[in-house]
């Protein structure tokens, strides 16, 4: 699924974000990526969907060689992934349904858009909010819509960058249940998070990144930071 071999990332401003990362994430894995702010978590995540390019090393995601991927082919990589963010990234003028359908429309999908969007909304339990604008939805509901949008294209990997960062604990657990169900059906989940409570309760593999290196990589690991 995801394979990194000795990956380095330098930014033009001189920051060395990653210093020789090697990791393997298999099919239907559920992985937390933890670590202090500015330790390289974000870069690690961004490399997976080719928002950033590695300076050195090899990355394979769903069979795509990230470092050598032609810009023209990047859309194909992104169609094989679903990405979820802390700030939801919904379009305010589109309803919940339209936000999910948008992801299908802009990749030129034409068949069965209605059915696929309904299915995705059903997955996150928001079919009855299909015609509501994001501003009339709670934070948790907005994030579910964003997850539905990430799911609608049937990706093999879901990448989530602090998906519960803006949500209260109770809502966060609701979101985690959705991720658990996604993982249960065989989809790989990679989630960067600061949520100690969740990591220590819903125990999964934990990859800890500190100073651009992998400090820990444990199955059923724990959070171990005080923030």
């Amino acid at each position, binding site marked *: 699924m995801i394979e990194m071999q000795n990956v380095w990332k330098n930014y033009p401003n001189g920051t060395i974000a990653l210093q020789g990362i090697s990791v393997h994430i298999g099919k239907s894995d559920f992985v937390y990526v933890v670590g202090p702010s500015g330790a390289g978590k974000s870069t690690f995540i961004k490399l997976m*969907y080719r928002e950033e390019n590695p300076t050195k090393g090899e990355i394979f995601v769903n069979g795509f060689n990230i470092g050598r991927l032609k810009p*023209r082919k*990047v859309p194909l990589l*992104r169609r094989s992934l679903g990405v979820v963010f802390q700030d939801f*990234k919904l379009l305010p003028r589109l309803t919940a349904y339209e936000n999910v359908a948008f992801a299908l429309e802009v990749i*030129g999908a034409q068949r069965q858009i209605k059915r696929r969007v309904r299915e995705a909304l059903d997955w996150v339990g928001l079919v009855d909010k299909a015609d509501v604008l994001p501003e009339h939805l709670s934070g948790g509901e907005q994030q579910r819509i964003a997850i539905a949008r990430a799911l609608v*294209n049937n990706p093999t990997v879901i990448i989530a960058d602090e998906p519960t960062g803006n949500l209260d604990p109770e809502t966060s657990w609701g979101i985690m249940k959705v991720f658990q169900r996604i993982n249960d059906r065989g989809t790989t989940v990679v989630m960067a998070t600061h949520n100690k409570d969740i990591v220590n309760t819903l125990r999964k593999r934990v990859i800890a990144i500190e100073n651009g290196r992998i400090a820990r990589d444990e199955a059923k690991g724990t959070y171990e930071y005080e923030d």
Partner: protein
Amino acid sequence: MMGRHLREGVKNLIRNSWMSVASVGAVAITLLILGAALLIAFNAQQMSQYVAGQLQVNVYLKQQVTKAQAQQIVGEVQNMPGIRSVQYVSKEEGFKQLEQMIGTQYHDVLGGLSQANTLPDKLIVKAANPQDTVTVAKEIQAVPGVDKVDSGQQVVNRLLAFLSVLRNIGLAFVLGLLVTAMFLISNTIKITIFSRRREIEIMKLVGATNWFIRWPFLTEAMLIGFIGAAIPFAILTLGYRSLYVHVGGVFPILTFPLLPVSAVAIKLFGVMLLIGLFVGIWGGIMSIRKFLRV
């Protein structure tokens, strides 16, 4: 697919309507001037042919040429190829014509000058084929006894020179305006890109292709160019038509026939549409390359 891009392009255009109006206006004004210059240029070509032909060739004979010699010259000119008519005006007739022109009121001015008439004998020649007027005039110049030949070409040449200066000034203006229009379009697209940056970001994330993201902006730019060309085209064609009808198809002062509306409209439409679209596409690409990093 193109339907969606067009729809999005129109949406963009309406969404920041003021910038769109400014851009369309800039293109329209530019092409209005260009179009007017083109109309003049098309007709100037026409004019140079007709006016040169219609103006008669005035041949002035030398003072020492006698009446008999003059008749001989008339015969000689008449026998030259490509001549339609030769009219002989003796110096006495010429004097009478002059008297008539001046009128009775100032008759005294000429007083007893008729005795000392220094007017030259004159031939008024017309070529069979109007386009040959200048050639004919040159041939007549070579005939012995001929002093000066005035083919009317100078008048036409002066007019053409004037028109070409006018055209060059117009073109310089148009060039400057085209650049301005391009920047305005590019700025409009920039604003659209900025106002839709969230959508663009999401489109990229869910795997829309680069061209899928670019097309609506390019469509918007092309629409600006197209509308900017269509407006002045309509104005110019309608204006030209009403002028054409008003003067009965003939330019009043120099009496040459204007080009028919249908003939100029096609050329005008082609040129203006091409330039409008070019300016639009170029302005769009400038912004897309700079601000739409996909």
